[in-house]
């Protein structure tokens, strides 16, 4: 990691909010799926409280990058530091040794992830979805965990759904429960993997509203999305990925109005055309 990575982007909006120390540092990450080179030497530093939006065509590696940060995929090169952990490895005498299942799980608790397809646990009620990990994994007191879950449900606008099963909810409602489930672990960073891509258009805003709200409360967020409205409203930086590289990285204002990369211009022309 060079010192250059630590300086905030020059075009960060001054006075908007003060960003903290680097909390996610991705350095030279390589990822292959078989012979397919998905992430090519990707580096990115995200500071505490920062909201970074990553966009790009499907297959550009943006979701894979997010999954690598959360250790849902193992990386083939480089390092990822997140929430104070060297993700997936420990260092011993300058050598990196892969962590076992339990230690990886411990690291993952500090990162929250929201998926395109919600992935709620369908066999248990909404409130059990939220309290399952705090109660069974963190051994939190059940009554306390339920009280907190109710607060979270209020926060995502679903105070009356605690006893519903996921199937009884609309997509937008399910995704908001999924956000509450992730928040219940009190993560230091929230990762969103195309959180609105599987939603009907009329349900997108209810999820984005929750996300904007979360960003205003100072949550560090990395969001893979094509919702440019969200990027304008909440992002500190917008990135474009293309064929496994980050090809553009700028504040929203610059990203949308004065993009440098031809890939960004082409991407924006396609996504803003309709």
């Amino acid at each position, binding site marked *: 990691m060079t010192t250059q990575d630590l300086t905030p982007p020059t075009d960060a909006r001054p006075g908007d909010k003060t960003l903290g120390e680097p909390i996610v540092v991705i350095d030279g990450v390589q990822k292959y799926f078989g012979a397919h080179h998905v992430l090519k030497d990707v580096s990115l530093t995200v500071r505490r409280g920062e909201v970074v939006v990553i966009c790009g065509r499907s297959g550009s590696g943006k979701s894979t990058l997010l*999954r690598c940060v*959360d*250790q*849902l995929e193992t990386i083939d090169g480089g390092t990822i530091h997140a929430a104070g952990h060297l993700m997936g490895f420990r260092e011993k005498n300058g050598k990196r040794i892969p962590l076992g*299942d*339990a230690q990886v*799980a*411990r*690291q*993952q*608790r500090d*990162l*929250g*992830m929201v*998926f395109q*397809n919600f*992935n*709620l*646990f*369908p*066999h*248990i*009620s909404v409130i059990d979805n939220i309290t*399952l*990990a705090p109660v*069974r*994994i963190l051994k939190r007191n059940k009554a306390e965990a339920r009280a907190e879950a109710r607060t979270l449900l209020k926060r995502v606008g679903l105070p009356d759904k605690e006893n*519903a*099963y*996921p*199937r*009884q*909810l*609309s997509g937008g*409602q399910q995704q908001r429960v*999924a956000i509450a*489930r*992730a928040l219940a*672990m009190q993560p230091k960073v929230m990762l969103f993997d195309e959180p609105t891509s599987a939603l*009907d258009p*009329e349900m997108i805003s209810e999820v984005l509203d929750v996300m904007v709200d979360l960003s205003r409360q100072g949550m560090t967020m990395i969001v893979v999305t094509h919702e440019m409205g969200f990027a304008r409203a909440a992002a500190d930086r917008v990135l474009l990925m293309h064929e496994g590289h980050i090809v553009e990285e700028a504040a929203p204002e610059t990203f949308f109005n004065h993009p440098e990369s031809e890939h960004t211009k082409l991407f924006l022309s396609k996504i803003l055309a309709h």
Partner: protein
Amino acid sequence: MNWSWSYFFEYLTNGLMVEGAWTTIWLSVVSMVLGLGLGVIAAMMKMYGNRALRWIAEFYIWLFRGTPILIQLVIIYTGLPQLGIRLNVIESAILGLALNEGAYLAEIIRAGIMSVDKGQNDAARSVGMTWRERMWLVILPQATRTIIPPLGNQFNGMLKTTSLASVISMEELMRNAQMLAQIEFRVLEVYLVAALWYLLLVSIWSAIQVRIEAHYEKPFGPAAAVSPEAEKELAKAIEKAGPA
């Protein structure tokens, strides 16, 4: 014709038959529970084990699904003593039935686990669950829903398969019927009564199975597919969209 109603009714409530039926029930339950344990272990070894564990699980499944349960029981009870392994009748019957059942259940459990959406594993990992926690709290409870119907069929089969333990003199329903038949030679009456007992046990089990299936279907049930709220929202959205 040599049919006797009086013998038939006598056998219906005969103490030996009632005892035999009770033995059939607990032998089935114990063998099924042990078989389920073996099946889960074998399925896990086959799906997640290293090469050696996988090989052991596959060999076990191949061996016990590939040979008749009758031979397995006879070998365990009358063959193993030659190697110095002496099991009594009850131990032999339970061991044989459980080993046989486990081999079939392993494949059912494996299919059940594979039926759970991959995203569930991602979600469980993202909240920091270890492999065991994911299995126990997320994957297996959902696999259960797929596993329960074939599992019920297996137990239905088990209730009747226990009759084979009569050949190693396990005193269950079939064996006790044989003993009564040898006393009074009312063969048709006594075996018909035995058959009726099996029908009764299987019927009771079927009623229980329906309830268990309903319990595990509840979160997924058709009634739960679309809530009134979701439906209202949908109607609102259609209205908002206006005429096409």
